[in-house]
């Protein structure tokens, strides 16, 4: 049993990290009253922008001459920039132009997934590079560098210390987001904007600015999830559609954690575990059953959704103005 957990938990964690980034980013966004269904697209864009950055760097300088610092910085900055642009598009449409948030989010997902797959599939042809496939193994080595003494610490090291710096960044992000949202004036004002923008407006809070900042920061955090997935989990190999439906699971996680970023730490690891559970459940030759096990994360989300609505506690509800655009003269 212990041996099983020793191999299961690290895998569940590395599955859970992209979800954690996505969930924290989406929670920050939703606290401002913006329901961004484009998270799936943003995570694709974040991933592919990092890939484009490091691909150009790797092919221009050559693998031998690569500098570890630049090797991490370039993809990181590209990823953040790409996600920021996606966040700005969403904000411009929904906040400035007051478009419907669900439709904008779905259009962003279409665009983002298409953007990722297009550049993932055509990057080599477009850049004229002489390589068979996008395999950024050197950059991936920088990204997945682990603590050197983790191996010497036995099971403790394997479960708690065997991850790369982005994984710890995700945990740190979740904690920071939680502290800022629930224990600072900034967070209080952000929540006010999400609960009742007209009240916040009357209190002198700049609603537009808060919505823009929260959504763009949220988008950048989500985008890192895509970067982690390609660079660390997939060891620098981009394959189209490989990221799959993780963006939607991240949105589900926000509800699962009832809008508390700190809870997304354990919740996303749990979801990561559910995501790969079917590999670990012995089913013999019956492959069909495995497909049913893969329902687990979705069914659990539905059950949580039902339970939070049944209990109907006031502190467990979504931000009151979630999904609605705000127009000052509409009161």
């Amino acid at each position, binding site marked *: 049993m212990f041996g099983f957990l020793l191999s299961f938990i690290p895998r569940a964690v590395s599955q859970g990290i992209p979800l954690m980034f996505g969930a924290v980013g989406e929670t920050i966004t939703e606290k401002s009253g913006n*329901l961004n*269904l484009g998270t799936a697209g943003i995570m694709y864009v974040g991933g592919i922008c990092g890939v484009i950055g490091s691909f150009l760097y790797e092919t221009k300088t050559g693998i031998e001459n690569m500098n570890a610092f630049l090797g991490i910085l370039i993809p990181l900055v590209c990823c953040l920039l790409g996600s920021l642009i996606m966040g700005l*598009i969403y904000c*411009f*449409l929904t906040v400035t*132009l*007051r*478009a*419907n948030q*669900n*439709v*904008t989010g*779905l*259009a*962003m*997902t*279409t*665009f*983002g*997934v*298409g*953007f*990722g*797959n*297009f*550049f*993932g*599939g*055509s990057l080599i*042809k*477009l850049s004229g590079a002489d390589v068979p496939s996008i395999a950024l193994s050197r950059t991936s080595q920088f990204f997945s560098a682990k603590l050197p003494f983790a191996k010497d610490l036995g099971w403790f090291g394997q479960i708690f210390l065997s991850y790369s710096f982005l994984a710890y960044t995700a945990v740190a992000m979740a904690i920071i987001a939680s502290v800022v949202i629930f224990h600072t004036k900034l967070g209080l004002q952000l929540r006010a904007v999400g609960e009742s923008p007209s009240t916040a407006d009357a209190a002198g809070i700049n609603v537009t600015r808060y919505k823009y900042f929260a959504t763009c920061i949220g988008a950048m955090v989500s985008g890192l999830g895509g970067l982690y997935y390609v660079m660390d989990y997939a060891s620098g190999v981009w394959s*189209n559609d490989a990221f799959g*439906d993780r963006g*939607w699971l991240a*949105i*589900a996680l926000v*509800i699962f954690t009832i809008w508390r970023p700190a809870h997304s730490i354990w919740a996303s690891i749990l979801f990561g575990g559910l995501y790969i559970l079917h590999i670990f459940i012995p089913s013999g030759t019956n*492959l*069909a*059953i495995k*497909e*049913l096990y*893969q*329902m687990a994360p*979705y*069914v659990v*989300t*539905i059950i949580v*959704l*039902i339970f939070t*609505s*049944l209990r*109907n506690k006031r502190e467990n509800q*979504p931000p009151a103005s979630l*999904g609605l655009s705000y*127009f000052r*003269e*509409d009161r």
Partner: protein
Amino acid sequence: MNRIPLIHISRRKDIVWYKAWLIRIIAIILALVLCGIITMVTTGLNPIKVYAAMIDGTFGTTRRIWMLCQNIAILLCISIALAPAFKMRFWNLGGDGQALMGALGAAAVMILLGDKIPNGLLILIMVVVSIVCGAIWAVIPAVFKARWNTNETLFTLMMNYVAIQLVAFFVIVWEVPKGAGKIGIINQNTNAGWFPQVGGSKYLLNIIIVAVLTIAMFIYMKYSKHGYELSVVGESEPTARYVGIKVRKVIIRTMVLSGALCGVAGLLLVGGTDHTLTTTLVSGRGFTGVMVAWLAKFNPIYMVLTSFLIVFLQRGSGEITTAYSLNQSYGDIITGIILFFIIGCEFFLNYKVSFRKSHKEVA
């Protein structure tokens, strides 16, 4: 002196129809220009040639026109299914799952009962089963929404993935041959459960069915009591309750209708054209349908136009990608950009933007 904002925005009461269309057309043209620039920068191709290739790829041959109409029909079927739910402000993002369940139901009947009963009866059972399957998939979230106000956006979204896994399960159960991991063409030798061909084309029947359903939906939403009730619920639930509309009943009834029509889309795919079942059969039309319905302001007749636009972009860009050996996702980028512009231009239909007049006048 108080600062006067440079731009003043106010809500429009009404807009003349030709102005509205002018704004939309300008938005689409701007989007096409931007897409052209992006095409040129990223791929180095001549954008005008690219657009010409798109038009040729959509209308070039008779077969392509049939494919275009078939794709419009299926997308339109899902869009008109989603429209009444959206009008009620019920965000049914589960069109994919509901259509897939309809397809699963139809395929199950074809596989299990094919050749055992007369073909007419078989098709009748297929119709009933797929409608029921689609409706069940939609009514589950509807009941929870009506009774406990459970968030329907995410509930229906999750139901999609449950449906996909369920289909994946049955695909392996029914796989032909064993170990292939796919079903292949169902009843290829006997054609049991295949819809009859009308006018020598396997696409025409689907197109006729969807055309009839579209007109029926237009009448239902515009002239029936049900249609009126659901728009009142959408406008304001308290008002609906005050005038004596049973809100829960309306929500559940509308979602049964929505899911049933999605089920029909699945049925048309399995029985009418594809004759097979895969997890990607519906290929995201449930999401595209959301945008089609919303862009058409939930009017089934306008949806013909918007679904044409979307299908044209997808089929056309599919053609570019083979012609210039680009990745096929190029179409999604173009679709995304055009959607951004159309979504954005709605603002100018709903609001009036006036600039600050010169200082002297203000003072």
